[in-house]
């Protein structure tokens, strides 16, 4: 299923890293108010052609409203959207070069799979014979060749999801909007479908904007992620950057599990940085722009910490007793109570068998290097 294109260079793959390609979709200062409620608050985004851009956030963060403004179902209260250089103000949904895959799939219940997929082509004025050819090719791409005559209610959830995808892709929109595309599938099917979705996107080269509340889904699918909170975009970046270098306490806490240590910058030298926290001093890599005395938090991911019975020689060493642990198969998550009562989560990969596992009330050392801690001032 993988496309046969020649391997692109890094610049082609990640155009947002370079200034020379103009963005494909420009969202400039867009807001949406419903009465007193501000659903989307002054969002600006540039998205490049061929991207899978994930809007990630909890429910009510405004991600769906933003998507619906791109589709044309909601008119922005302020701001501007342009797609491929074309201003979208006042353009109704039926005239936009976008298509949407709905969370509920919104398959027309009275039409067969074939008619559902053909609907957009026929409304676009394509002849019936040509449309049917394209429908057949599209159904083949989503592996539903034998299902053309079925009605939506005769399909499984996964099959319906693929019909919805086929229907929204068959017109080759410039931009495909996906609202929680995998939300209605069970976990295993969801994982399979993620890769399928990426393959199809790779083959067709259509730009995707995906709305999701599932961080794993965003991590797997996205070229870049925009994290939203309370109507605003709080951070935009590649999945790795979002996870490894979160820009704020919210993002660090929202994506994955994190231990946050609140404190004050003590030493801010060009080659070292020390932060005083209630749990003791923490050494981190230097951060440009931080001055001594500033209020910050240090975020440390559980898998960046090590547990040991003997004190090691790491940059940071804390000690505590095991208060609880959960065996997850591939790893074990330990909850430790530090001396001041605060609890810290550490995950340990089960590379060896469980013989050296720690147990309740054991006193252990938690060590992590300076580069493990991310200093957050927001």
């Amino acid at each position, binding site marked *: 299923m993988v496309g046969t294109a020649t391997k692109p260079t890094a610049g082609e793959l990640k155009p947002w890293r370079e200034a020379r390609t103009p963005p494909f979709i420009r969202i400039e200062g867009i807001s949406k108010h419903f009465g007193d409620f501000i659903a989307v608050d002054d969002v600006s985004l540039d998205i490049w052609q061929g991207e899978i851009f994930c809007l990630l956030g909890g429910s009510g963060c405004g991600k769906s409203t933003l998507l619906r403004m791109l589709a*044309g*179902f909601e008119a922005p209260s302020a701001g501007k959207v342009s797609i491929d250089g074309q201003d979208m103000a006042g353009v109704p949904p039926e005239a936009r070069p976008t298509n949407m895959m709905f969370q509920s799939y919104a398959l027309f219940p*009275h039409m067969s799979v074939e008619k559902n997929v053909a609907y957009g082509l026929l409304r676009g004025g394509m002849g019936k014979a040509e449309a049917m050819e394209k429908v057949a090719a599209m159904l083949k791409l989503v592996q539903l060749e034998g299902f053309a005559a079925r009605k939506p209610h005769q399909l499984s959830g996964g099959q319906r999801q693929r019909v919805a995808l086929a229907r*929204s892709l068959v017109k080759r929109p410039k931009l495909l909007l996906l609202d929680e595309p995998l939300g209605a599938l069970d976990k295993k099917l969801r994982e399979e479908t993620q890769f399928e979705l990426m393959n199809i996107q790779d083959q067709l080269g259509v730009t995707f904007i995906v709305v999701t509340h599932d961080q794993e889904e965003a991590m797997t699918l996205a070229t870049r992620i925009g994290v939203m909170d309370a109507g605003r975009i709080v951070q935009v970046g590649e999945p790795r950057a979002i996870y490894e270098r979160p820009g704020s306490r919210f993002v660090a806490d929202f994506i994955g599990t994190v231990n946050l240590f609140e404190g004050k910058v003590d030493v801010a030298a060009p080659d070292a940085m020390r932060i005083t926290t209630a749990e003791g001093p923490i050494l981190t890599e230097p951060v440009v722009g931080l001055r001594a005395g500033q209020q910050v938090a240090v975020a440390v991911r559980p898998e960046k910490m090590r547990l040991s019975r003997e004190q090691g020689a790491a940059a940071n060493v804390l000690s505590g007793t095991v208060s609880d642990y959960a065996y997850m198969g591939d790893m074990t998550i330990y909850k430790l109570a530090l001396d001041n009562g605060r609890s810290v989560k550490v995950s340990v990969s089960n590379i060896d068998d469980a013989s050296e596992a720690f147990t309740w009330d054991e006193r252990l050392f938690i060590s992590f290097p300076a580069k493990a801690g991310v200093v957050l001032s927001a």
Partner: protein
Amino acid sequence: MRRSWFLIIAATLGFLFLYIPIGSLILFSFNESKLVTVWAGFSTKWYGELLRDEQVLGAVWISARIAFASATLAVVLGTLAAFVLVRMRAFWGKPILRGMTTAPLVMPEVITGLSLLLLFVSMERMIGWPAGRGMVTIIIAHTTFCLAYVAVVVQSRLVDMDESLEEAARDLGAAPVRVFFDVTLPVIAPALVAGWLLAFTLSLDDLVVASFTSGPGASTLPMVIFSKVRLGVSPDINALATLIILVVALGIVIAGLVMRRK
């Protein structure tokens, strides 16, 4: 859960209460005697008498045409009203329309009948239409109260319908009118059928509004039955009732079969 004898007995008595009158109607339609309440042997003579009664046959035909026309008009108007109420964004007239589509449901028939009659009389005097009263005025009157029932049925279906179906059609390139005919109408079609049947039955059944808004030569079936019943019980009415029950039962069986096939 344990079964409760109290409930079983109460429900049995309740259903007997519902069906004994209907059963007695049917039973005495086959009674030889003119006295409806004394059994004097099996006979189908009242059916023969009924089928020779031109007044009744004429009234059946008039009522059927009125019910067909009012139900059809009521479905069109009621669906439009429901669509405006559920799908269109708020505007100044929406609360008024909501009120006007709900009020007929609770309006006593005598008031609906009298008020429409007074309107028709005044309209005729001022603009010459409707000239006299008859089938047209009954159809208008029936459409008006039936459309409220249709609107209720269609509204609930529209509320249940996933709005993203309509959005999907627009997203795929259909203009709003096209969306209505391609997607909305087929999806709410069962509600339209149910609404039509309900309106047809209500129109066929109505005595009071028709009596007010009817004119000479336009006696509906309930009006003819009512005038006969007022003179006393007569077995040919029982025969008529039996036939109506038969038609309804047949209609329901057919509807059931159609639904099952779907």
